[in-house]
């Protein structure tokens, strides 16, 4: 319905411009005829010439406006599709000062710095929410572990230890970049907790040699865990025979690629296209258009793009009954602090 309206509006604009284009040459014809007539009759020319020049100037302005209009329309359309706020700067139609001001405000609000601040605030809020009393939580888990050991319940002891490790990593300071080895250990802990529930139905296969240079590369915290969680919940949980999650990595001159594959349920083509489309949009645009929950992967993607740039982030590949592969593209970073921030 919305797109129908916009198409109708566009058609009206184009119709007006076309009418203008037809009327202007038509009005030029009598002017030229008048000049010719005046020249033949020996009448004074300057007034008529001036008239003709004005007509030509108006025509050139109309042509210029037409092309500017088409260009601006394209930039606005691309902005609406989520291709970044820089497009707003490129609009070349002479809007009224008020419209210009609105566009400038819109650009400010959707600039990367503002979004990063917003994302940071959200993360801090979540961290505070989780840090209500982490020591109380750790102490309780430790107490459960001790009781379990005394009672001879080794599984419960292992469970509480893994859970404590997992929370310690999740709740601790978000400001530093962590190594791949830390992230891998976190997903191992997460997976162990899930295995208490699923047993041997689900398997984790990490094909990354952590004794090589790969372990030194750094990334923001909690990038892999939400994706592994999605793979377990949406990919493997519904499969009777369970499945395997495989994690691999690859390095190029500039980038660092991590692949998380599952051989679970996969997803239909339409959903795959929708997810990839949403991943390529800026989050503020995506949030306006989203119709469903499950925002974790979009947050991960947004964090990576705000930190490192639009060319980094997640990409999904999936086929029903074959499984899903998530490709994570990161820059090769070896510093411990997040670039340009002290969150």
């Amino acid at each position, binding site marked *: 319905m919305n797109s129908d309206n916009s198409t109708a509006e566009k058609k009206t604009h184009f119709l007006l411009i076309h009418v203008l284009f037809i009327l202007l040459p038509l009005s030029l014809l009598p002017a030229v005829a008048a000049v010719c007539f005046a020249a033949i009759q020996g009448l004074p020319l300057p007034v008529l010439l001036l008239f003709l020049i004005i007509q030509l100037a108006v025509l050139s302005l109309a042509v210029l406006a037409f092309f500017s209009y088409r260009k601006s329309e394209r930039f606005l359309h*691309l902005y609406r599709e989520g291709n970044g706020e820089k497009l707003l700067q*490129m609009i070349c139609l002479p809007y009224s000062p008020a419209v210009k001001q609105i566009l400038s405000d819109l650009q400010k609000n959707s600039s990367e710095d503002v979004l990063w601040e917003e994302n940071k605030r959200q993360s801090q809020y979540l961290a505070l929410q989780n840090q209500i009393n982490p020591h109380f939580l750790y102490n309780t888990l430790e107490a459960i572990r001790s009781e379990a050991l005394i009672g001879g319940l080794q599984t419960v002891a292992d469970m509480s230890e893994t859970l404590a490790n997992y929370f310690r990593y999740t709740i601790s300071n978000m400001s530093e970049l962590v190594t791949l080895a830390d992230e891998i250990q976190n997903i191992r802990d997460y997976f162990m907790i899930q295995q208490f529930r699923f047993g041997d139905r689900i398997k984790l296969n990490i094909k990354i040699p952590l004794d090589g240079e790969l372990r030194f590369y750094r990334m923001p915290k909690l990038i892999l865990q939400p994706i592994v969680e999605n793979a377990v919940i949406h990919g493997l949980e519904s499969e009777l025979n369970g499945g395997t999650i495989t994690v691999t990595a690859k390095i190029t001159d*500039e980038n660092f690629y991590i692949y998380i594959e599952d051989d679970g349920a996969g997803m239909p083509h339409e959903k795959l*296209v929708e997810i990839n489309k949403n991943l390529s949009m800026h989050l503020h645009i995506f949030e306006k258009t989203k119709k469903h929950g499950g925002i974790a992967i979009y947050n991960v993607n947004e964090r990576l793009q705000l930190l490192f740039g639009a060319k980094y982030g997640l*990409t999904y590949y999936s086929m029903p*009954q074959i499984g899903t592969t998530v490709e994570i593209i990161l820059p090769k970073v070896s510093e411990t602090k997040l670039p340009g921030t002290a969150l």
Partner: protein
Amino acid sequence: MSKENLVLSHVCFSENGNEELNEVNLTVFEGDILGLITLDNQGLESLINLIMNNHLLERGHVLYRGKEVSGCLTCKKTPNKIALVEAQSRLVPALNIADNFFFVKGNCPLFVHRRKQNRQIQRVFSQYGISLLGTEYPSSLSDLERCKVEIIKAGMIGVKVIILRDPSSFLGPKEVASLNALLKQIAENEGVSFIYLCNHHREILSYCSLLAIMYSGTIVLQKNCSAVTEEMMSIVSRDSVRLLPDLHKPIIPPVFEEAVQIKNTHGVEISVGKGECVVLLDLDNKVIPEITDALFEKGAPKGYSITVGGKPAFKNTALWSYIPANPISSSLFYDMSYVDNLILKKGNSKIANFWLRKKYRKTIIAEYCSICGDAIESRDLYGMSYQKLYQLLYQRILLEKPQVLFVVQPFNRMDMYQRIRVLEYISQIQKEGIAVVLLAVSLSDSLRLASRLILMQNHTIVKELPPDEFETAAEYGLITR
């Protein structure tokens, strides 16, 4: 450490108002041989066109060697350094091989030292085990030599991505294996990436390092070939195969009644019975042109003779039908209506006085309406899907009812779903009692319907295999299934 030679990220691209590519993500690294299978052929031509020539996109961007060449705001005006190697030669026919290497770029020197130039080219070829002198002209090269020359040339002028289109449709199995050895050598030594377009996963799994599957204009799967299993691939094509339960076993007629006989001066004598489907596999890519010549003219160069119903084939054209490789472009008349194409006699001539009688046309339209649907009313064939065009071709054969049907490379350049449909058409033809001779240089899916597989090399029969021994054809480097 490798580098990304080609990156497509969230690419959406339309051509002529049709959305061809939708959220395409593809990364090709240095030294990769990426096999690409399309399930429905949508967007393949656009993908090739886009990565070679650059266009303004609706969304996303394309990077070649780390630089953006196509985006939604701007795109590079000149083509990328990407080569396409396919059945059609891209060498300049009027120049010899050495000149093709050194002078096509436009920096031709004033004086040419021929011997020095030939020495240089021979040194280049010897690295790859090719014994060409450089003085040969492209027309004198075999398809394999021509492909190798094109690939080496591309590598020499700094091309970093080479698209190889369906090599098994014009090269024999041994030739494909030889070509792939060269690909591996160039990929490993020079960091060139290959995009290997092919319609059969076995071929890709044998020769490529990565597999990508494209469906409805999107790359839906990208995996290491080592992680791909047969079970996985059977799931990929399961939906279409499930619809065709009759295809699993080849039809062998209970009584052998000869329909066609193929002979040559080397002592070859092949008889094919009515309702039988025989695959004649040309191992060295020499036999098919000879058989085609023998069908259409008297006295084929290697002494092949084909008799249908006891009479020479070229004298009794009404008794047999022929579908060439790539029939869509060569056997249909796009300006004529669907019905007119359907009732063409032998695919190229009208039946005398038939067009004048509207009653006949009405009867045919009424009869085929249930089979072909609304397409039967079409006034021309432009804009019609591949599915409809292939249906037209095979329905025409059923209407002609010949004694024998010769099909050259029936699965050439076909997506996975279309291959299954063609198998269904051939199965229908067999059920009508028509003998089918599949002339192939690669097996692809040919064996699904075959009652015999005849391997031919150097104009002699190397082996004749019944269905239960088809798997043994793997000894000859063939991909059987």
